């Protein structure tokens, strides 16, 4: 098996190398890099041409009469890039991705752009997988229901959506109009009514049940929204949002109980107590770590606490889980992670007025962060990044959301018809176990491959979205590089995205073999 994986990995690297040769040749020959200077009437043009030829590594070293053939330029570029694999800088040479037409250092640019793009793509992928798989399961479980039909249509819509168009709409309505509204954030009566009506229709279709139960759910939802929204308006929630200890406590307990019901069943007391213990610890740690978290100067303290949470959760599940160790660990881990998420959300909410005071229009339409933000608080800067990140992530998520939902739905429907599902039902296994253990696990195995493929597509989508939102990252590097006939930045983007795709394929292959023992050849 290991041999197979390494063979495949090696082949993909070979493909990456081949792709780099071909695309270098294509980019170099796609136009004349000195075009604008040749047509220029500037007296200085000749000197500028010389300068640019030097930066593009165009000239032969001993004469300025002839240009360097493309394969020699490729070789120079390749030795520079391969230097990145050489930590000592002696065997191959220093790490060098070349320079742009304007003399910019591509090595620094790609390092910066890669971080920004990777953050965007990773978060979008994760969210799309979680939401898409959940929607897909509910759709499959309620096949041919209103929910199924409307979700199928919505997913078709997302699938057919031109990404740049959606990004411009999001920019206009969710950024500019939202900022206008934030100047004086108040819910009007018609808004409340429309939102309440919408929730009263949507929530019952998701929850399902008999017509009577649906009507009851809808009515409760309507009344709930009609009371909560004016209340939030009254306490100025949009300017000073807080969750508060009470909400966090209720949410943590609800998470523990909910995950127990979902994963192990309420009759399994050991698991339930483990989950509740984690919830209690979560509430306690929320109160205890408040000052520590507020004083954070970087991501080190939040990330460290999160890691500690995971360790504690696993330990509780392992030690007190008894015979249901695995289920208990799953419950404690999920409860702990989501409770941490809620606590983090509360911290960000606490920071929101601080951000508004330095940035009255909270979502800028250009850039990945706000330049000259007059704040030195870590939380404000971090929240500023988040507020810039969330719209591009939302837009990126839409297309892959459609992929995952459609895939999960059809895969679940296929698995549900298998013989072993009928056997499981026949021997009296509860519906929850049938869906989660027998159907879901087997339906999810090929997802690993899908993620690897989807990731390569998403990186392409990132180029568009970053362009629309004016992020100074890979999209800009690629597009300006290609229009300037400038191979270094274009190649940097290609190698970076290709390397990511190769690594993801590698991980997918290994995961696939772990999940499905049949394919171990």
């Amino acid at each position, binding site marked *: 098996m290991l041999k197979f994986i390494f063979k495949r990995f090696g*082949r*993909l690297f*070979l*493909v*990456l190398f*081949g*792709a780099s040769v071909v*695309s270098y040749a*294509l*980019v170099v020959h*796609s136009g004349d890099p000195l075009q604008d200077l040749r047509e220029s009437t500037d007296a200085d043009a000749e000197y500028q041409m010389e300068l640019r030829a030097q930066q593009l590594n165009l000239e032969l070293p001993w004469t300025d009469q002839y240009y360097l053939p493309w394969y020699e330029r490729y070789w120079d570029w390749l030795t520079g890039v391969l230097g990145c694999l050489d930590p000592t800088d002696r065997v191959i040479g220093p790490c060098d991705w070349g320079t742009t037409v304007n003399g910019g250092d591509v090595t620094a640019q790609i390092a910066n752009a890669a971080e920004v793009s990777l953050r965007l793509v990773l978060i979008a992928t994760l969210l799309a997988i979680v939401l898409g798989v959940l929607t897909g399961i509910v759709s499959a*479980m*309620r*096949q*041919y*229901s*209103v929910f199924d*039909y409307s979700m199928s249509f919505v997913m*078709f*819509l997302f*699938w*057919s*959506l*031109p*990404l*740049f*168009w959606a990004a*411009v709409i999001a920019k*206009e309505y969710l950024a500019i109009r939202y900022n206008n509204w934030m100047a004086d954030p108040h819910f009007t009566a018609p808004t409340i009514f429309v939102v309440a009506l919408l929730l009263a229709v949507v929530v019952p279709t998701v929850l*399902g049940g*008999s*017509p009577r139960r649906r009507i009851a759910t809808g009515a409760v939802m309507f009344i709930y929204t009609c009371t909560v929204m004016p209340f939030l308006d009254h306490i100025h929630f949009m300017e000073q949002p807080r969750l508060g200890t009470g909400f966090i406590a209720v949410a943590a307990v609800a998470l523990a109980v909910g995950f127990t019901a979902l994963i192990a069943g309420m009759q399994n007391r050991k698991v339930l107590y483990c989950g509740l213990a984690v919830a209690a610890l979560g509430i306690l740690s929320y109160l205890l770590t408040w000052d520590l978290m507020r004083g954070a100067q970087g991501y080190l303290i939040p990330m460290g606490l999160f890691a500690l949470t995971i360790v504690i959760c696993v330990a509780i599940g392992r030690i007190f889980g008894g015979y249901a160790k695995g289920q208990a660990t799953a419950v404690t881990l999920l409860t702990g992670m989501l409770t941490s998420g809620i606590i983090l959300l509360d911290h960000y909410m606490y920071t929101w007025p601080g951000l508004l005071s330095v940035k009255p229009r909270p979502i800028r339409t250009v850039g990945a962060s706000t330049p000259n933000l007059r704040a030195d608080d870590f939380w404000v800067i971090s929240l500023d990044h988040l507020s810039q990140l969330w719209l591009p992530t939302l837009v990126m998520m839409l297309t892959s959301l459609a992929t995952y939902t459609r895939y999960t739905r*059809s895969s679940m*429907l296929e698995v*549900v*018809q298998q013989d072993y599902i009928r056997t499981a*039902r026949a021997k009296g296994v509860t*519906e*929850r176990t049938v*869906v989660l253990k027998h159907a879901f696990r087997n339906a999810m195995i090929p997802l690993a491959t899908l993620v*690897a*493929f989807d990731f*390569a597509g998403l*990186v*392409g*989508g990132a*180029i*568009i979205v970053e*362009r629309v939102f004016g992020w100074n990252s890979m999209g800009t590097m*690629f*597009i300006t590089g*290609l*229009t300037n006939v400038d191979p270094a930045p*274009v190649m940097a*983007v*290609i190698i970076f*995205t*290709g390397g990511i*795709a*190769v690594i993801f394929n590698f991980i997918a292959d290994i995961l696939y073999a772990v999940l499905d023992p049949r394919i171990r050849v």
Partner: protein
Amino acid sequence: MSNEQTPDSDLEQQMVDLAEVEDAKLTADHKSYSQNQLIRRRFFSHVPAMVSLVVLSIITVLAFTSVGYGIIPGWWQHPFRLPQGAQLVNDGQPTMFQDGQIVGPHPFGQDGLPRDIFARVMRGTQQSLIIGAVVALVSSVIGILVGAIAGYFRGKIESVLMTLTDFVIVVPLLVIAAILGSYVSDMPFAPFPLAIALGLALWTGMARLVRAEVLSLREKEYVSAAIAMGASPWRIILKHMLPNAIGVIIVNASFTVAAVILLESVLSYLGMGIQAPEVSLGMLVSQGESAINTRPHLFWIPGIFILTITLCVNFIGDGLRDAFDPRQQRKGDRRPGLRQILGLRGFAMSQQRRAGTESGSTDKDQE
């Protein structure tokens, strides 16, 4: 068992009657159909696909007849380029359903120059449709060829060809398309060079699918029989394998059309696809983007056209897949009508039936 009391002859008579009734029912219900008829019936009963087919036909006919194509003139009076002495009507806002007129002189409004947006959108739609069709054709031909050769001959040829298809995993499609697009941007006969370039980049998906299909068809008895009778490889591929793989090919080609229309609009939006003075829907969106507040129609209308076309093509592809691949249809769990979906009719009955047959969602609902 009440039948035990009845005399034997009566019972026999009853049985015969029953059998006759059953026979009559069978002959009435189950007319026999050929494979192609079955596929056609399944496709024509797929409602979203049918609706999409109608909408797409209307859009196609409208796009090609209104502004005309090539030397053939259309019935729409305004050209898609700026005519001499053009007048700004209604401040460039759409005249559709305004002042009691249904269409008006400029139904989709005008831009700042002022050019007629209806004519421009129709021209852009033409380009999108042409590119979709040409790319699907080119990429399908290359993909079928590569896939069939790789799957049939195996060995070294296969590993070389399949390594080529891995390019698409490693390099994002948009990057390949943009690089190839920059080559053909200055060529004449506007959408065709771009379409062929995109076709050269997009064949890998088809090649993978055809190869997988050919690999499984290789093991069939009729292929062995053909080999035994001395048929040449080409004859086997063309006469025996491709007709049996036609479902996969058609379905994938239809999804390619939608993907390509989106890809072209992205490229044109970024300024790397179709160049002015030609028009494309992506280019129209990028031109209208800055005027989203003053003249929203410049931004919304081309985008809605892109969305409608791709949505229709995707639905048609979905219908074709359902038609060609009956495994996708669930047995015993019939698609309910609209009233059942809305819970207005037979809800309790369907719940009972589902609880009886597969105990699907009802148990979960009761939990």
